[in-house]
């Protein structure tokens, strides 16, 4: 009772990275709150799945295994989670801010009439004093996220409703083994007793999942472009530089929205969070939505025609100039030095 729950989602049969990252975060929050960390996973043919989860330090794994649950469906997943949360009364429940988590968590929060904060970039335990009501709260979950287009950072709390629910995007939290030999208690959920036929009114007719092609998070060098790059053709120059440096190409939301590159490359609040050794920001003005996803890069170089662009406030080196002219010169300089 009153523990921390992490919803573990499956990514083509494997536990998703975002869930393992949340387990790592959940473990440290549980230690701080001196409560247990529990996990729920829903799917089909899940025997042995606990081996993927236990090393991240969860105390208990609830497994709902049913052939009808092979692919994510809103209604039965909601029914199972709501039933479990009503019984177990968690104080905190964490979901990945994925297309599954962002579909499931609000439905669950509505059913439990509890508060949910989307896309948190930081989760911290803290106190709160409600001066108006004269109440003091200890050990609340501070759900910290950018808001208003990233121009403010808001700390959200759920003083009175439980569970305190939050979603977090992949890559925001660090994934770390707690103990490779850690053993978790496994509890099997009797699915047929909880779900009904009414939960299966929505049917999946067709499904085409693509293998993850680009994963810029793993790259040590990221050449990233913003709206200022100007065109899809100019983005080719970024790909040239990335190739020479052995890196990947990233982008700001504005560049993705403009259709210059695929969403998989988007860095920032609504994309991935990256921490490469080198981040080269080309034609990126540096709005907080973007910098939230790259400011922990070990070194940041900006290329911008505007010397006063906000990105230059966090950059180590600011090259004032046109991306189209600068990149070929950088390539030439690299080739000269690497000879």
């Amino acid at each position, binding site marked *: 009772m009153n523990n921390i729950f992490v919803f573990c989602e499956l990514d083509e049969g494997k536990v998703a990275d975002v869930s393992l990252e949340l387990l790592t975060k959940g473990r440290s929050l549980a230690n701080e709150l001196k409560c247990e960390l529990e996990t729920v996973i829903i799917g089909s043919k899940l025997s042995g799945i606990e081996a993927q989860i236990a090393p991240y330090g969860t105390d208990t794994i609830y497994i709902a295994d049913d052939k009808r649950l092979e692919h994510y469906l809103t209604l039965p997943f909601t029914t199972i989670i709501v039933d479990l949360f009503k019984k177990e009364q968690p104080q905190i429940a964490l979901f990945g801010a994925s297309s599954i988590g962002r579909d499931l968590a*609000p439905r669950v929060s509505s059913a439990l009439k509890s*508060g949910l904060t989307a896309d948190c970039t930081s989760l911290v335990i803290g106190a709160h004093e409600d001066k108006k009501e004269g109440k003091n709260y200890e050990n609340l979950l501070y759900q910290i996220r950018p808001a208003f287009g990233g121009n403010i950072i808001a700390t*959200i709390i759920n003083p009175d409703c439980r569970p305190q629910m939050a979603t977090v995007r992949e890559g925001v939290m660090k994934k770390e083994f707690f103990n490779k030999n850690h053993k978790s208690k496994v509890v099997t959920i009797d699915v047929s007793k909880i779900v009904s036929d009414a939960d299966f009114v929505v049917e999946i007719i067709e499904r085409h999942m693509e293998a993850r092609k680009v994963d810029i998070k793993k790259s040590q060098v990221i050449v990233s472009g913003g709206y200022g790059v100007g065109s899809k053709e100019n983005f080719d120059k970024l790909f040239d530089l990335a190739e020479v440096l052995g890196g990947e190409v990233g982008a700001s939301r504005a560049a993705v929205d403009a259709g210059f590159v695929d969403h998989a490359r988007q860095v920032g609040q609504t994309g991935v969070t990256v921490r490469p050794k080198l981040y080269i920001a080309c034609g990126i003005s540096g709005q907080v939505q973007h910098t939230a996803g790259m400011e922990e890069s070990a070194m940041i170089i900006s290329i911008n025609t505007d010397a006063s662009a906000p990105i230059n406030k966090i950059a180590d080196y600011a090259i004032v100039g046109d991306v189209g002219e600068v990149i070929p010169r950088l390539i030439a300089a690299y080739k000269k030095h690497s000879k």
Partner: protein
Amino acid sequence: MKGLKIIVLAKQVPDTRNVGKDAMKADGTVNRAALPAIFNPEDLNALEQALRIKDTYPGSTVTILTMGPGRAAEVVREGLYRGADNGYLLTDRAFAGSDTLATSYAISCAIKKLDYDIIIAGRQAIDGDTAQVGPQVAEKLGLPQITYAESIEKVVKNRIIIKRRLERGVETVSSPIPCVITVNASAPECRPRNAKYLMKFKHAKTVTELQSETEDYLKIHQMRPYLRIAEMSVADVQADVNWLGLSGSPTKVKSIQNVVFAAKDAKQLTSDQKDMDWLMGELMANHTLGA
């Protein structure tokens, strides 16, 4: 097939995408006055899906439902200009401070007062980016939800076929109607305003907006009932005030920190080849690049 009654949920939002230099004050905080109020972009994608159903199944109607202050009537008008049939403005002081849960409760109460087959909304609004209200409305109405919709393929025998665009691929699902659908930005853009509808509806107004008009204007207005944008209050939708506003919102904003860029001294370089050579030399020397 008989016509379908479609409700489109739309929100008026500050245009946070165009936070240019003038939108930031000298102290690094947001200058809200410099941000124009717009029709939430993904709600326009939702409207287009609704209008396509209306095009395909004659006799269908599209109703805009928006919640907000009086000025949000502009969203209803914008919908009418593009092909919606009518609209409602859900407005009441008691809604102020509502989080997503209280908002979805209010909207679900309003929807219960309306006749509908399909409810369509944008996936998320750009001022909050939460994507929570759609699923929460669906839960409160006890309806299935289809999120991340990219296109509504067809409606057959009380079922609707929808293509969803997910992070990793596409999925086509079949759902019974009524249901709640939320639409992605990857769906087709909304058609522009139609000149004929613009002429027809430019005087569409709420009761509150009509208060400042002359008697003659009101007379003409009354003769054209399609120009009336209905307002709905808490009492009209029979909502329980305890579930609205700040008191009905489980989440509270503990603190807001305006983002002020922490100044750090970037070493400034020109785009000359000489500077580029020096920079690459530095990156190699400190092992940022190479071994």
